């Protein structure tokens, strides 16, 4: 027990002196890094605009209210597009994620030295690049539209789904697989009767979870031209039609809350 003596009295301390010093050193280094970074940021900031921002914020919010309700007839189609992008993108991603997950899981991979690292690389690169960047890339390659958005969502979701799925595969109960093996089943039969039933609940949960995230992400894909409600948002912002922007944001909020509710319900039913 670390104790400090103070005028002959023993006083309890939480840590001994060396540990306390190390912790202070760590804090000091952290604060130095933060101050250094902050100076770079503040050097690139035009402070006049920042001090002016309360006025701008008040100005924008006064223009944003009330929302232009009549515009709602123009956003049904883009909203439907958004949901289609998210759903089809998720389905496409699952088709590609399942084989990748089986190749990446330690207990099902055919080769731990070449194929597993390759599968892990696919997962990492798909996960580290945001769907907006995928969309930017695809819009520049195959042209603007809903199609580019769907592919972007799919490419982005592969990594997420495959990662969660391969972790689920690695955590399965091995005795069940062994029981199927003992019946003399082939490799594919073991997969279908020993492994798949065990990961099915995880698979369904991951699907719905990712679908929910994809709805959120597909609402902004339009900002780079990849279809959906974001296109309308971008157009309204460009012509400074703030009442329309408010309505679109409200529509996005309702859609996101709806998808969150659906996903929570479905996951609750599975687990």
């Amino acid at each position: 027990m670390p104790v400090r003596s103070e005028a002959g009295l023993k006083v309890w301390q939480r840590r001994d002196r060396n540990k306390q010093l190390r912790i202070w050193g760590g804090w000091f280094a952290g604060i130095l890094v933060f101050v250094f970074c902050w100076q770079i940021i503040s050097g690139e900031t035009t402070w006049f605009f920042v001090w002016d921002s309360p006025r701008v914020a008040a100005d924008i919010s006064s223009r944003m209210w009330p929302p232009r309700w009549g515009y709602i007839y123009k956003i049904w189609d883009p909203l439907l597009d958004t949901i289609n992008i998210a759903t089809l993108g998720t389905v496409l991603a699952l088709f590609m994620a399942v084989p990748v997950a089986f190749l990446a899981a330690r207990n099902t991979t055919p080769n731990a030295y070449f194929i597993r690292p390759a599968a892990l690389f696919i997962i990492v690169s798909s996960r580290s690049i945001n769907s907006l960047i995928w969309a930017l890339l695809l819009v520049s390659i195959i042209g603007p539209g809903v199609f580019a958005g769907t592919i972007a969502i799919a490419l982005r979701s592969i990594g997420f789904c495959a990662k969660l799925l391969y972790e689920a595969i690695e955590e399965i109960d091995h005795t069940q697989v062994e029981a199927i093996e003992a019946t003399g089943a082939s490799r594919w039969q073991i997969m279908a009767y020993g492994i798949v039933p065990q990961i099915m609940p995880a698979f369904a949960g991951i699907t719905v979870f990712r679908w929910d995230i994809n709805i959120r992400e597909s609402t902004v894909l339009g900002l780079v031209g990849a279809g959906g409600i974001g296109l309308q948002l971008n157009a309204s912002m460009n012509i400074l039609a703030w009442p329309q922007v408010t309505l679109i944001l409200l529509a996005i909020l309702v859609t996101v809350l709806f998808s969150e509710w659906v996903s929570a319900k479905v996951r609750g039913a599975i687990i």
Partner: protein
Amino acid sequence: MADIAATTAGRRWHKPPFIKNPKLRWGLYTGAAVYFILASYSILAEVNWLRVYEGLPRGAKFIGGFFPPFPFSNILETGQFEELAAQRLIDISDGLVESLTMTVTSTVIGILISIPIGLGAARNIAPLPVYLICRGIIAVSRSFQEIIIAIFCVAMFGFGPFAGVVTLSFATIGFLSKLLAEEIESMDPGQAEAIRATGSRWPQWIVYGVQPQVMPRLIGLSLYRLDINFRESSVVGIVGAGGIGSTLLTAFDRYEYSTAASILLIIIGIVFLAEYSSGKIRARLQ
């Protein structure tokens, strides 16, 4: 016994279906099939296939841009290091430094603000009015995408990394306070009560009774958020909020695919490194 064997002998075993109720199962299957046909039709009907066909060589060029990525490809083509290439390299490193500083600053600011909000949003230590206000802040921060918040920040604070820092800090608050509050709500009340029983005041109670229980998780979450903030900092630049995203946008707009490829490789590399090291640190803490 004998007639059970007789009745079951001729039947084959089938794998039990995932959804037990047959009506629900077939209803879901047909509903899904109809939806997919309609949705695929609506998407594929809008595709301009001629444009996709025209884009294929560009796609090939993009993939070719990875072998080798930008500075090396330029050296291979021209045999020397051109001035223009040097300028482009400076652009990339500037964007990268901006992204990294934005990541650090916004994570620190986000953590500092989200600790009090997290404490306020935990039902077992906060009174009801404080709880409701803090949960409200969390809900607002979580329901909008970073990019939408970034658009408003750019409109308010002007172009540049400051808008990005505000955006990412705001997004960090929603994420971190929510998870911190959940952690505090599921802590062991015995330890906290023991500190209470020594006659501690409220701040002492938090520091000695609550904080040691949630600290490992808080550090883990902060590292995880650092990771996410770097990823997001590469995106907010698309709407003008600074960072590597604006460099990337310029590269795509100019069809400079080998530059874009090298930026993407750098992002993947940094994310991988960050994920690996934060995983190691988290494993040591727990």
